[in-house]
Structures are given as structure tokens and as C-alpha cells.
């Protein structure tokens, strides 16, 4: 045992043995946490931090949208007329309902309601999410049919073909990324539902539902902004 630098040794820091004779460990408590509360707080903080990165992730696209809308307002108005406002509104409503069912699913876990209730809300959320994606698919196929998908086959009859193509570039990028998040959300929900079916969640432990809910609501919020920005702004304007 060789000490490279003998001599000064600092006094030790007090290291106390685990004195707190607490309640027995919850089965879902991970070894490196002290208690369930610390674990839950860490998880929700983690998800919120992740959502901040998500905000910035979508933020880059919103930035591009802002610059190009500012550069060609008329072109973007014109292009937005070819989106179906009713499908858009329907999808907004669907997502809002799914947010409600999600919130109720979290509440069901929080209040230790029966597994059936928990699964009921979770499955409704998933069904609504799938409905959203279905409508999105209809909208996308319409765009393909009308040749307003950017690329070599893009055709634009009206004014401002260039800004219109750019609008649809952004439309597909933004809604595509959002749809991808919806798909991931459905995957997460499937796992959560499976966990719920195993009687995992009660008022003592519902962090996974809560954290998944945060994600789901965030995806809803993105759509809440996408809907007016893509479908609505400029709708009142009618080109000559």
C-alpha cells in the first residue's frame, strides 16, 4: 500500500448509518432512491425536462415556419386554402378529447380506481389517437392525389407556386413529425395499458401513467398550435 502523497489527510465527512427506520420498501422503489416520493419527483422532473427538449425540437420547425411565412405571407395564405379545415378541426377536437381521457386515466390511477376503469380511459385515449392518425392519413392521401406533395411531382395551378411548395414542405415536416410523436405515444400507451392490466398502479405508485400523460398532453399542445398556424391563419383572405 503506497501513499503517493503522505502527510496531510483531511478529517472524514460524517457518514451516518441508515438511521431512519422507515416504512418497508415499496416493490416498485428502485434501489438508488430513498423513497417513493423522491422517485416520483425525479421521474416527473425528468419528463418535464424531456418536454423542454421537445419544445426546442419542434421549435426549429416553427422557426422555419415563422421566417418563411414572414417572407411570403400571400403565398402561404394561398397555399393554406388547400388544406381541409374540417378535417383539421375534427382532429383538434379528437386530440382534445383524448387529452381529457388521458387526464382521467391518470386520475383513475391516482385514486386507486379499479383496473377496468384505468384501462378503459387508457384504451379510449389510444382509440382517439388512432382516429387522429387515420384522419391524418386521409388528408395525406388527398395531398398525394392532388399532387401538392413537394418534390418533382408538385403541381400548383394557382398563384405563388414557389411559396406554396415551401408551405407544403413545412406542412409535411411539421405534421409528419407530430404524427411520428403520436405513433410513439400510442406505443407508450400500449405499454402503460399492459402495466395497468397487471394491477401496477394505485395511489401509491402511478408515476408511469402520469409521465406518459405529460407526454401525451404535450403532443396535444403541439397540435393546438399547428392547427391555427397551418389551417386557419389566412383563411379569411380570398385571392382574386
Amino acid at each position, binding site marked *: 500500500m503506497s501513499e503517493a502523497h503522505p502527510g496531510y489527510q483531511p478529517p472524514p465527512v460524517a457518514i451516518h448509518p441508515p438511521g431512519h427506520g422507515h416504512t418497508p420498501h415499496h416493490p416498485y422503489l428502485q434501489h438508488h432512491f430513498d423513497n*417513493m*416520493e423522491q422517485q*416520483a*419527483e425525479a421521474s*416527473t*422532473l425528468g419528463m*418535464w*425536462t424531456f*418536454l*423542454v427538449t421537445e*419544445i*426546442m425540437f419542434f*421549435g*426549429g420547425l*416553427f*422557426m422555419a415556419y*415563422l*421566417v418563411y411565412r*414572414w*417572407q411570403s405571407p400571400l403565398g402561404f395564405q394561398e397555399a393554406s386554402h388547400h388544406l381541409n*379545415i374540417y378535417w383539421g*378541426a375534427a382532429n*383538434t*377536437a379528437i386530440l*382534445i*378529447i383524448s*387529452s*381529457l381521457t*388521458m*387526464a*382521467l386515466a391518470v*386520475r383513475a390511477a*391516482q*385514486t386507486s380506481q379499479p383496473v377496468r376503469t384505468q384501462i378503459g380511459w387508457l384504451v379510449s385515449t389510444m382509440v382517439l389517437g388512432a382516429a387522429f392518425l387515420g384522419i391524418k392519413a386521409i388528408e395525406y392521401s388527398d395531398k398525394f392525389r392532388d399532387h401538392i406533395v413537394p418534390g418533382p411531382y408538385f403541381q400548383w395551378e394557382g398563384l405563388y407556386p414557389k411559396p406554396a411548395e415551401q408551405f407544403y414542405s413545412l406542412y409535411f415536416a411539421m405534421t409528419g413529425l407530430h404524427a411520428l410523436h403520436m405513433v410513439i405515444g400510442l406505443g407508450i400507451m400500449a405499454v402503460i395499458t399492459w402495466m395497468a392490466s397487471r394491477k401496477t398502479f394505485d*395511489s*401509491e*405508485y402511478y408515476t408511469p401513467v*402520469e409521465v406518459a*400523460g*405529460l407526454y401525451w*398532453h*404535450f403532443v*396535444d*399542445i403541439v397540435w*393546438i*398550435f399547428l*392547427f*391555427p*398556424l397551418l*389551417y*386557419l*391563419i*389566412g*383563411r*379569411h*383572405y380570398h385571392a382574386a
Partner: protein
Amino acid sequence: MSGHVAPKSMYYAVFAALILGTALTVAAAFIDMGALNNVVMLAIAVTKAALVVLFFMHVRWGTRLTWVVAASGFFWLLILFGLTMQDYLTRGWVDGTWR
């Protein structure tokens, strides 16, 4: 552990407000208010997002840290938008600027 449990009625009320907001924003889209259209749309969107964040995402009852984290995301987004747009919006302000 126990987080705040909000009554079901509150969730339904928030839900109703969100649907109402959606209806309003669609209706407003067909009324020509000039530049005000953009403002109204965005104001409604921000309100709806705030409702979701505060109630559905429980920030209303969250710790101060949660507030700070949630706010910082939007704040940094504003930094990105603000400093980028201060380039685009000021092109040509100084005579002879490259453009």
C-alpha cells in the same frame, strides 16, 4: 405518495373550455379582421395550451421547479425566435446594408 387529485368536474370544465376555444378559433378564421386574425388565433392557441399545461399537466399544483422548467422551454423558444427575427426584421434598417 400522493399528488394533488383534482375533481373530475374540473377536468370536464377545462375540456369544455378547450372545445369552446377550438370552435371560436375556427369561427374567427372566417371573419376578416385583417392583421388581427393572426393575433386572435395565436391568443386562443396560447390560452388553450396554457389550460392544458396548468390543469391537465398539473402544473397548477406543481412545485416551483416544475413551473420554472415548463416556463424555460417556452422562454428559450422565444430567444430562438426573437434573436433570429431581429436579423430578418432589421435587414435594411441601416442604409446600405447587405440584402
